[in-house]
């Protein structure tokens, strides 16, 4: 769109004697994105998550590995954890007493045990400063803070998503660009290879790789990165190849070539910048996919291994006791879902903004 304001310096004048301010693709896209409320909401949420993930070590969070069995399975609350634990212990005492008065005499040893635990807890509260901590999202089965565990879990999940996306994009760009620019036999060979890889059951291959190369105890994040990245560059390679083929015979490439530009320069300076929009859209839509894959594997016990935890690990731990302690499932599940929502909204918004005539909208 040409703006109608008259430029006193008169740099660009159209046929109606109006000065024109050139609008770049990016400014235009940003304008469209700003109008999309859902995408903007997504952008904000993603920004907040990114901030929390980056700043986690300097934020006033409790240590996500410190355990205190006196504080296991506490419900979310703004009160100091000592009070919450005492209320919980008292509730248990009255519950057992009520059952005994109903005639369940067999519970007498349970009552004694609960009383001993109650006294121990009281004594511990008097001396242990741990009980002054406030767990706004509750604690898990080892008394670890759910808030900091979810934030640190998010760090791992987002890292996997980010590294997976970057690797997939880099590999995809290189192979797609070479294939599209070279054409001929090399192109044919590479694309047959991509076709065959497309036929492979992606998740199954990743599961095999995780099962085969994962070693107990040591961190398996690195293998996870490789496994996810190796099988995920296919789509971007196809897209980049298509774009390059459609552009490589255009005049500006011809011009560059006639001025003696090398193939590498033509690819990286002239062709790839034109595919940047598609690549950004693809990345933002595939990032949640990688996070889902990673959590999927971690949920099954094939992803990151302890002491690391990702959102998938947290959800799978939460499932264990969800009937009695639902927050252990719901907290990580909700936080993860919100992020995936936001990413999807942002990705859709970016697609609409960068590629307004997109054919594959749903």
């Amino acid at each position, binding site marked *: 769109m040409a703006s109608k304001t008259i430029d006193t310096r008169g740099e660009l004048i159209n046929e109606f004697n109006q000065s024109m301010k050139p609008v770049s693709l990016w400014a235009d896209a940003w304008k469209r994105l700003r109008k999309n409320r859902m995408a903007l909401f997504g952008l904000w949420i993603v920004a907040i998550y990114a901030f929390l993930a980056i700043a986690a070590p300097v934020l006033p969070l409790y240590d996500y590995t410190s355990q205190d069995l006196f504080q296991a399975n506490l419900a979310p609350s703004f009160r100091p954890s000592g009070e919450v634990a005492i209320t919980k212990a008292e509730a248990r005492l009255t519950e057992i007493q009520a059952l005994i008065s109903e005639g369940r005499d067999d519970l007498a040893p349970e009552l004694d045990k609960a009383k001993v635990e109650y006294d121990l807890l009281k004594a511990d509260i008097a001396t242990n400063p741990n009980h002054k901590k406030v767990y706004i999202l509750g604690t898990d089965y080892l008394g670890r803070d759910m808030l900091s565990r979810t934030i640190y879990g998010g760090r791992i999940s987002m890292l996997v998503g980010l590294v997976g996306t970057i690797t997939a994009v880099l590999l995809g760009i290189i192979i797609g660009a070479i294939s599209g620019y070279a054409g001929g036999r090399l192109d044919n060979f590479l694309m047959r290879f991509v076709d*065959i890889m497309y*036929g*492979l*059951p*992606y*998740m*199954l*291959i990743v*599961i*095999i*790789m*995780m*099962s*085969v*190369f994962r*070693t107990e105890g040591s961190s398996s994040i690195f293998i996870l990165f490789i496994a996810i990245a190796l099988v995920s560059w296919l789509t971007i390679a196809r897209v980049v190849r298509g774009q390059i083929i459609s552009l490589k015979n255009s005049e500006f490439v011809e011009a560059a070539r006639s001025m003696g530009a090398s193939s590498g320069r033509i690819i990286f300076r002239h062709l790839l910048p034109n595919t940047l929009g598609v690549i950004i859209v693809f990345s933002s839509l595939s990032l*949640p996919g990688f996070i*889902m894959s990673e*959590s*999927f594997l971690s*949920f*099954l*016990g*094939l992803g990151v291994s302890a002491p690391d935890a990702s959102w*998938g690990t947290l*959800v*799978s731990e*939460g*499932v264990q006791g*969800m*009937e009695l302690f*639902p927050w252990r*499932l*719901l907290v990580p*599940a909700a936080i*993860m*879902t919100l992020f*995936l*929502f936001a990413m*999807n*909204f942002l990705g859709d918004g970016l697609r609409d903004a960068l590629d307004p005539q997109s054919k594959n*909208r*749903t």
Partner: protein
Amino acid sequence: MTKFIIRRFLSLIPTMFVIITLSFFLIRFAPGGPFSSEKKLPEAVLQNILKKYHMDESMPMQYLRYFNDVLHGDFGPSYKYKESTVNELIAQSFPNSIVLGSVALALAVFAGIGVGITSALRQNRWQDYLAMSLAVIGISVPLFVIGPVLQLAFSMQLKWLPVSGWYGRKWPLTLILPALTLSFPYFAYIARLSRASILEVLRSDYVRTARAKGLKESAVVLKHVLKGALLPVVSYLGPAFSGIITGSIVVESVFVVPGVGRIFVQSALNRDYTLIMGEVIVYSLILVVMNFAVDIVYGFLDPRISYK
């Protein structure tokens, strides 16, 4: 058309070949075999075990042997479940997965198209907004979150449905939650897809013609709109099917369904390599054949496509 079918069918062979070869070598070059994790065996015993499973032979020999066995439909013995073969284990669990998967797929397709039609015809009204919000949830929320949350709500709080399990007195009821969970993301995607394509077709000339000649609205939608609008849904069936296969791995684990997916996870955790191989081959075969079938169906449905 016949030529296309034959060529497309022949292209399945290299894919299957790559899958078998890739998984075979991935597994054989793994650090630590299936017997190395157990307590130290006497050398002679280990040799005998290796001999029994033909693992003392050279790698190419093992590969040829395995390939030959697979071509004869024999996946060998399971390393972990010593008394059963891989074929038996798969044969036991396979029907359960088929039941779960096909119910989920049917649910996703019919409910998805139904919701898609409704929200396209009621565009920008509350039905549309409700359906599309549901669809966004379905696409964003992972299966392993939906499953446990449904268990929490419908089994533990409301006590309407069994938490997990498969066989037994409650049999058809145990199918409901896993099938719902498994179908949800694909239901959501199909709903969005069919809504978008119906909206596009509704604006087309031939629909205007159909209306202009005085057809009833129901006839226009059912006879003319749907036929054109369902093509994207058909082409999505291939990816949906492969998604349901991988999804069933997690859903079967959450709901303790004795299917192939559950065994797959266990075999991956146990490093029961022959079992993993067998399952991957079976899964891939189904997938590849399904994609083939979708391509053929697509060709019949869309008269604009001509195969050379």
